[in-house]
């Protein structure tokens, strides 16, 4: 994504600060011109990545920080969330939408992230922690196909 206005936030691993970062992500989405729905989606994705960084990456240790970089550009919003943890394999998490998994009380964060932004990249930074990059681009103008951004990841309805 092209260079843009970059806002960096560094916070300790405290869940009560999630709301604050959500708000910043929403305001920046507005500044880059995402519509309200896309702005909320982008902010929700940032929120989930941040919660994961705090809870899983940094194990809620307030001495460990999370760095969130939000880049607002003509193309849209890019968010990078970096923790101090040991990383993980995002391909190895169970699908929360099948069978008994639907009754688990956790395990839906990555699903939401993938649904609410256009691209997600996971990278482990040696000696640093996990980096999750989210990209939300402007939607093509309404009319041509009405693509709801999360459609690609919603599997077909299978019944009960």
């Amino acid at each position, binding site marked *: 994504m092209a260079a843009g206005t970059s806002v960096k936030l560094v916070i300790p691993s405290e869940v009560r600060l999630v709301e604050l970062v959500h708000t910043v992500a929403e305001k920046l989405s507005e500044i880059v011109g995402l519509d309200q729905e896309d702005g909320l989606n982008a902010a929700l994705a940032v*929120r989930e990545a941040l919660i994961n960084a705090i809870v899983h990456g940094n194990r809620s240790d307030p001495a460990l920080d999370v760095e969130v970089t939000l880049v607002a550009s003509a193309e849209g919003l890019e968010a990078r969330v970096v923790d101090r943890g040991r990383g993980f394999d995002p391909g190895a998490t169970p699908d929360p939408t099948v069978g008994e998994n639907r009754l688990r009380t956790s395990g839906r964060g990555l699903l939401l992230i993938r649904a609410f932004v256009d691209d997600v990249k996971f990278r482990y930074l040696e000696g640093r922690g996990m980096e999750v990059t989210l990209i939300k681009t402007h939607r093509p103008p309404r009319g041509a196909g009405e693509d709801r951004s999360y459609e690609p*990841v919603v599997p077909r309805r299978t019944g009960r």
Partner: protein
Amino acid sequence: MMKALLRQVGTVAVLDLSGKITIGEGDVVLRDKVHELLDAGKNQILLNMDKVTYMDSAGIGELVACYKRAREKGGTVRLLKPSGKVYDLLQLTKLEEVFDTFREEQEALKSF
């Protein structure tokens, strides 16, 4: 902050929720309210989602936790009028297949 107002309609405890169900805030309110109901032996619960703006994964997880707790006590949790983002989230997570969901309050009440 999410609000949860209780109405008892016959045997059904209706919780009118408003705001967002998110980590450390709405999810806590929801948990506490449903705990209170179950402790008081009220396990037929209808959550009115009409005025819930959105949920995050923690809020969704709490919704499932409430459902499971009510089931353990021989009751259930059903949903009234999930709309907008909340509806999208139930669809995305396939929880629409888990929760009985209603568009009309009368219909929902009759289902218990």
